[in-house]
């Protein structure tokens, strides 16, 4: 008799669990060493909490009603719940505040794609430490955590969620043309992007978001000053792992500044990512800049196995 689990969910048996736990233990010991305190929040949140953080974050998730008819949603990441915690439980605490977590997050999936509805995430949120120092600290902890997890070939893609908008400002692209241009950028369609920006006669609009590489790619881009400032504050061992990607754009709306993704040569998709969200906690009532990231523990495990360990 076979009793299936929902598509995109799965059981974890002892051999795999032991390896996942070892990765989580290695990563959380790095968090603790840097003064990040572990917190836990409910898997279920009021829908209005998630939509206050980011309209898209609550949209595709799993919704249910409680006894009183309130709409409850399974959290799609830990960043918004922690923003709520900071504003409501730490209204006067002196920043910076450092939090970490290992928790499940829930996403909707398209059928038959092998995507996970439920994923184990390990991550940090650094609250009240503005960029570029705060971002540099978060990336330093990220590099150390990846090393502790046993990865040797990882790279960190670093971009800036506000860079392209500043470039559009400089060129003077009108507001009504922007949604389509940004759509092409977020869907990674450079053919469409070149088509949409051609009429503005500024080659940088198509060229800049395709720039990837070392710090030299920042040279001719005046909008990349913040990325340079972060890079200058990184320890050389972490800096050597950074690949700038000036087209990096997240679908999540709450990122305001530097954004990053983690890659491993053995995996075709990122292991995790994060960035600066300087407006998010203010939406919950305490105006603090912040930066954070999450790693997908199962993908860390896959990458580790892929590296032959």
């Amino acid at each position: 008799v076979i009793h299936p689990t929902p598509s995109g969910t799965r059981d974890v048996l002892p051999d795999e669990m032991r390896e996942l736990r070892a990765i989580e233990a290695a990563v959380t010991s790095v968090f603790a060493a840097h003064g990040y305190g572990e917190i836990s929040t409910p898997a279920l949140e009021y829908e209005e909490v998630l939509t206050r953080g980011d309209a898209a974050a609550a949209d595709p998730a799993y919704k249910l009603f409680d006894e009183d008819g309130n709409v409850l949603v399974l959290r799609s990441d830990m960043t918004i719940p922690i923003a709520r915690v900071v504003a409501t439980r730490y209204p006067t605490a002196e920043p910076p505040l450092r939090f970490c977590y290992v928790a499940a997050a829930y996403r909707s999936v398209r059928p038959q794609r092998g995507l996970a509805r439920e994923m184990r995430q390990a991550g940090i949120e650094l609250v009240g430490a503005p960029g570029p120092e705060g971002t540099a600290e978060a990336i330093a902890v990220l590099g150390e955590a990846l090393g502790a997890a046993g990865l040797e070939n990882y790279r960190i893609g670093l971009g800036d969620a506000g860079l392209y908008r500043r470039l559009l400002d400089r060129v003077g692209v009108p507001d009504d043309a922007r949604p389509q241009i940004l759509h092409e950028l977020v869907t990674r369609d450079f053919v469409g992007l070149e088509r949409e920006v051609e009429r503005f006669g500024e080659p940088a609009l198509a060229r800049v978001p395709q720039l990837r590489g070392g710090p030299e790619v920042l040279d001719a881009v005046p909008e990349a000053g913040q990325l340079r400032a972060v890079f200058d504050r990184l320890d050389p061992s972490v800096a050597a792992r950074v690949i700038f990607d000036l087209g990096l754009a997240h679908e999540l709306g709450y990122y305001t500044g530097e954004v990053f993704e983690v890659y491993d040569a053995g995996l075709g998709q990122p292991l995790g990512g994060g960035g600066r969200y300087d407006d998010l906690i203010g939406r919950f009532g305490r105006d603090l800049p912040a930066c954070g990231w999450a790693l997908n523990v199962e993908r860390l495990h896959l990458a580790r196995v892929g590296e032959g360990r």
Partner: protein
Amino acid sequence: MSALRIAVPRGALMGDTLDLLDRLGIDTAEVRANDRKLLFDDAGIVTMRPSDVPTYVEAGAADLGITGKDVLAEQAERNVYELLDLGFGPCRMVFATEAGEDRAAEALRRLGVMRVATKYPRIALDYFERTGRQVEIVEVKGSVELAPLTGLVEGIVDLTATGTTLRENGLVIREEIAASTARLIANPVAHKLKAGAIDALVERIRGG
């Protein structure tokens, strides 16, 4: 260049794709000579159906791939980068019905819904939704032209280059939905980790 693995589509786009790779200095002689083999490690080429190209590229089993815009539009949720319009393999996605009186229009008017057969259910549904028409999509795998001739459906949405197959089956193009050409796509991680090699290849293709 051998560090990159490229997914090459079999079928209509294969000849132009191999010609392009030849011009880039990738030796495709073995691919041309061998119709059954699928993986050519020395040349860094894997061959497959065009509709499988996004699957391999998204998963990182190939760093780059070449496939039609029609395939990319049908699989819009794939997380791949679209780098270049290669220009070859031009064709159109069209809505066609039997010649003579438009049976699809009649069905829509009298029955409120028309039946449409296609291999591209997503493109078809999206198009008719955008144009405010109710349709019942019938997904078929083989020759779509057969469906309206047997009364299975009133119309079809299909890809055509010259229109010959449609004409030979007594079908006429009623509407053009989109134009398509071959595109170069990249895996998002390879796009970063192999940025130098990918950019060099893209520049050489742009350079002609």
